[in-house]
């Protein structure tokens, strides 16, 4: 395997560069996935049937906590990449762990939020609105959940093998994924919650 030392480790081999571009293309597909969910959400958001509307069930506090936690985790994963490029494995792992912990907190609050919705009578089967709300949030939440497992796997590999072209590549790609989830959340925050409570 040819290693190009003029580039950061995560870009240093052909295979790594392929993987990074491939992941960007995957993110392009994810844009469409969430766009479809948003389109469906906007169309169905009036379809509340007998159930409550968004304005009736949204609460600002958990949403704000989720937003701040996720924004911070996006910051820490950015620092993770920065530390990785400086070759500081300890700091890198620290930021990585911080990100995963923040992700877990986010997920915890989201689960609380879901329980709350079901509690106030907006379950999956209540109305088209509640279903698309939970599906949109749930798809993002499932991505976060998957990210937690995936990130943990990578973290173990970083611990085991150190900062190699392979592990740095995986960590970098994970950071792309995590930032992307943050972007999606910003759109959910703006166009599901804030618009709903406006």
């Amino acid at each position, binding site marked *: 395997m040819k290693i190009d030392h003029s580039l950061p480790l995560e870009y240093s081999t052909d295979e790594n560069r392929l993987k990074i571009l*491939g992941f960007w293309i995957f993110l392009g597909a994810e844009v*469409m996935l969430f766009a479809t969910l948003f389109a469906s959400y906007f169309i169905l958001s009036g*379809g509340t049937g007998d159930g409550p509307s968004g304005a009736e069930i949204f609460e600002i506090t958990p949403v704000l906590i989720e937003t701040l936690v996720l924004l911070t985790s996006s910051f820490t994963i950015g620092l993770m990449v920065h530390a990785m490029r400086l070759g500081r494995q300890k700091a890198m792992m620290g930021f990585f762990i911080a990100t995963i912990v923040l992700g877990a907190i986010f997920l915890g609050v989201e689960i609380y939020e879901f329980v709350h919705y079901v509690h106030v009578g907006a379950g999956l089967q209540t109305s088209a*609105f509640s279903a698309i709300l939970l599906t949109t949030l749930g798809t993002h939440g499932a991505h976060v959940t998957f990210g937690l497992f995936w990130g943990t796997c990578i973290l173990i590999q970083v611990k085991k093998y150190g900062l190699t072209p392979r592990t740095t590549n995986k960590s970098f790609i994970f950071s792309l994924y995590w930032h992307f989830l943050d972007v999606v959340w910003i759109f959910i925050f703006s166009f599901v919650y804030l618009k709903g409570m406006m």
Partner: protein
Amino acid sequence: MEFFERFAIPHPSPAIYASMVAIAIVSIAIVVGITYFKKWGYLWREWLTTVDHKRLGIMYIIAAILMLFRGGADAIMMRAQLSAPENKLLDAQHYNEIFTTHGVVMILFMAMPFIIGFMNFVVPLQIGARDVAFPRLNALSFWLFFAGAMLFNISFVIGGSPDAGWTSYFPLADNEFSTSVGTNYYMIAIQIAGLGTLATGINFMTTILKMRAPGMTLMKMPMFTWSALITNVIIVFAFPVLTVALAMGTLDRLFGTHFFASTNGGMDMLWANLFWVWGHPEVYILILPAFGIYSEVISTFARRNLYGYKSMVASMVIISLLSFVVWVHHFFTMGQGAFVNSIFSITTMAIAVPTGVKIFNWLLTLYKGKITMTTPMLYSMLFIPLFTLGGVTGVMLGMSAADYQYHNTMFLVAHFHMVIIPGVVFAMLAALYYYWPKMFGFMLNDRLGKIGAWIIAIGTLVAFMPMFISGLDGQARRMYTYSEASGFGIWNMISMVGALMLAAGFALIVYNIYYSFRYAPRDIGSDPWDARTLEWATHTPVPEYNFATMPKIDSYETFWDSKKKGTPLFPDKIEKIHMPNNSGIPFIMGIIFFMWGFSFVFAMWIPLIICTLGIFACMAYQSFENDHGRYISIEEIEETEKELGGKR
């Protein structure tokens, strides 16, 4: 016992029981045969675990041909039922299931793998790459497609086939009106295959963008590769929509949500909307690679460079964008009003412009050429007039006011068959004849091939031209019967004759494969067509590393130039080559996905959870596996090259 009742077929007929027996016998025969000839090891090492794009391509094509016959059998049954008024061959339910599976199988499990198969085989060779960007993902794509296809195909013997049409409009497809598990099969089998296709899209986009031979800039890529690039862009952005739509459909059917129900705020129109947001780009996913094939074939056998290369590329880019803004023309009659219909009517007809440019470019490629009429060329020359007929009727359908009369009639059915068969199927058959020598080292018989091409072309005309007429006479599509008084009888009888001709044509192709396998000469060299692009520059059979050394590209047709001018294409110095290792993971994941899908269809939650965990376990294993691939040594390469007749 309620649990087991779901597995029974709701509307059994002797034909289905016979199929069950046939499936069982064939499966047992395959297992016994492989065991008897001791081929399990070979099969596992060389095919099931392979990550080689050429072998995956061949497997895609084999699967596509199998599915062509499955979908074709459906078609023959449909045409037979309709060949006379008040016919009693099939009942309504059976007919509904058959036209549903015909549509799904032909679009998603025949045309798609055919195209992706040729993309797999040809694209890396055409750009001078060793393999695709992510060989294992490529294998996974194939096995996901295959798992989806098999899951869909067992529906008619276990639990019943979907019966709500290939568009599966809600609320018809909801539990209330489609009570069997058929539509679950539809939702989940297509979902699994769709994930594989999405992965293919990402894989090939990366491959084409990053792995071209040195010197091959984007504007020096062969036209098929260009079409593959554009197609994969469309796949990447269209398939996620299908993923979401199918997921919502699955939730509606299995988890009691109300996305597309007419109660509790649901909206049946949304399914149609999402389905066609994917569905229309899908049409271009099918047709663009076909255009790519025609470009290669026509330029090869006209012995001329492709006319208007730049406008060909530009027209494909424009088509890819337009393909995303026309979907509403599939439901002009849903009551959106004149304004919305006008917008989408204009965008729809606008697509005719870039498509027309391509037709004229092909015609002008023939100009001052030296045309040799081989079988692939014959298909291409038959494609132009037939596709033009299909294409202009598409423009007619694009006029939304008139579409109120065409919609849901045989006119529409005639239109899309007249584009898809001459457009896609002819292209795939042309590609089959064209690339067969590169794949298998011998040529298919040209004479038989040409007879087959004529039978298929005339069969297409005879089968589908009458539908234009019966459509304008008021015959709706998807009717399992009609009255004597309607006067549709004669047109459907003619269609039946055409369908039989098509069947005969395809049978002749199979015979041709058998005949040529037995009798065709094997000493055909590596460039039997005197072709122009890079895939013909390597040996036949293609060594696993494709090219011993990376070719240097300086024009759109470097291989042709090097043949004409004698300039060297390949540098001398051989270096060791890095290749990926085979892996059983994609195949195993395919099997688990099949079981996952089956559990999901029948709402068996515990096996479903186990399978889900199995899938994640495979992914984790893959993540932790330390597989750096292997190197092929210089000596090994030199030996292979010598064996194949000298270094290229």
